[in-house]
């Protein structure tokens, strides 16, 4: 069913967008890629799994996953980025965050094993459907879509409207100038990491609940794809991450529809390379970066 596939694509895309917005937020503010971000996403699913296993209800599990992911983000900022702030520390920051990612995966596999672990929620939440205009839609997918969009909407509001957002934008523009205006750059970096990681963890939770499995692989498969999506949308641009995510989600769903599912992973990266050729800054981004001023 084409329409159903499209809806699946949008739901998938909203999860991509949640992760991609985290990547893009961190990139926009620090000008560095956080390669551990996908593993925060992965761990979100397992935190949910563990919470449920300990008897927590889903809303509690969601809260726990958001908080633990956020805290993990603070740890990543402290270990992987705090010391590597200079504009030419791209490589160092990439290495350190990749190293953190490796440790997170390896330890997760020590605890939960390398195979996917089933995650079943009590009740019929994972299977219940509603029928809208003659289509049977899994309620859970709709819920994921609505909540993801809501989260991104809130994030956008925070960045554009609040004083926290003003500080974030100031640091994104120029950390040195922001510091001159009395902004605590380290604090802003921590806030950004917390927000981005919490969102990523929630996306991981959503994926685990939707598929019924938590899987230590998803950081490298699903999570890394969001990195390409960020570049497609324009690095450092929230709108770009949202639209890029939805676009890729829908295109992937169509690829499955047409029997090209196996190549879905390739296609995202090729799309990114093509975008770099025709629109170097991505769909929405600008190429101005902090270190290009002379």
């Amino acid at each position, binding site marked *: 069913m084409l329409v159903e596939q499209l809806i699946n694509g949008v739901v998938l895309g909203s999860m991509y967008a949640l992760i991609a917005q985290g990547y893009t937020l961190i990139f926009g503010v620090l000008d560095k*890629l956080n390669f551990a971000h996908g593993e925060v996403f992965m761990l979100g699913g397992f935190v949910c799994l563990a919470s449920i296993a300990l008897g927590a209800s889903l809303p509690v599990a969601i809260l726990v996953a958001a908080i633990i992911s956020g805290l993990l983000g603070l740890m990543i900022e402290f270990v992987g980025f705090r*010391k590597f702030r200079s504009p030419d520390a791209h*490589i160092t920051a990439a*290495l350190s965050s990749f190293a953190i990612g490796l440790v997170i995966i390896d330890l997760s596999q020590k605890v939960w094993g390398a195979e996917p672990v089933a995650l079943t929620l009590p009740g019929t939440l994972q299977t219940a459907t509603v029928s809208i205009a003659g289509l049977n839609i899994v309620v859970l997918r709709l819920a994921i879509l609505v909540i993801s969009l809501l989260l991104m909407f809130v994030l956008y509001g925070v960045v554009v409207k609040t004083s926290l957002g003003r500080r974030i934008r100031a640091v994104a523009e120029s950390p040195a100038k922001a510091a001159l205006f009395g902004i605590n750059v380290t604090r802003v970096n921590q806030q950004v990491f917390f927000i981005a990681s919490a969102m990523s963890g929630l996306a991981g939770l959503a994926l685990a609940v939707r598929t019924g499995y938590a899987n230590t692989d998803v950081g490298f498969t699903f999570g*890394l794809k969001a990195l390409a999506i960020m570049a497609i949308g324009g690095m450092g641009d929230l709108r770009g991450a949202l639209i890029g995510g939805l676009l890729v989600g829908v295109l992937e769903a169509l690829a499955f529809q047409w029997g090209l599912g196996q190549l879905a*992973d390739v296609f995202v*990266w090729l799309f990114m390379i093509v975008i770099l050729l025709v629109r170097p800054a991505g769909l929405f981004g600008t190429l101005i970066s902090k270190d290009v001023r002379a």
Partner: protein
Amino acid sequence: MMQDYVVFVGINIVLAWSVYVILLAGSLSFANGGFMAIGAYVSGVLTVKFGVPLVLAALAAGVAAGAIGVLVGFPALRTRGIYLMLVTVGVTVSVKAVIESIDYVGGIQGFGGMVGTTQWHVVALVAMVGCGLWALSKSPLQRILDAVREDELSAASLGINPVHVKLVCFGAGAFLAAVAGSFYAHYLIHVAPDQFGIVLSVFIVLYAVLGGTNNLWGPPIGAAIMTLIPEFVRGLESWRPTAFGIIILGLLLIRPDGLLAFRSITARARGIFVTKRA
């Protein structure tokens, strides 16, 4: 047994150098596992299905990987260097997925029948690459690379084309990784796409960085140590990623510049001294 050590250490040394060559121009590549896979499969098809001699097939595979590297590296480098890092991740992910979908080379099951690598192939390869890099370190090119790595803008206003320099280095790194992959496959007889995931690419980078990229001797030391230690310390194999990650983090935190400094000050002063006398 001894032959195993020589071959695997040697291949990992060349892989570490393939990352080093790219780092020399200031880019980081997580694509070398993917290029290695290209090397393994292209050369494998050439020898197994077309009867091409191994050395020739390895060279052809290297050229193919180098061409792909230049092709995908160009759009990334033309804009901002950091995009190359993204593209390299994409290369590794994509190469694996593409190979998995090609039935001609066995899909997920993998591809077999490659034979012919001896330890002498690998020793010769290490020696040749080492000599090449040593010659580079003594040539004016080393200074050009240093300049591009240190400040692209400044280098460009001196007449250096940073994109060109980085692209050639990226292509050369892809070439080396693919040649290493060719000999690797023809030693193992059978390879599967699963062996060439992103983790392998990250490991290769870590070999190079762990040994230190101050000069061309660091990467082989890192590669040799990281290949051999798990063989001799029982139980470490299963903790490899964690141990690797923590060691790298520790070193980066203690000596952030040390690992990526390229040529210590003393080595640099000596180099100039030699140049002046010559």
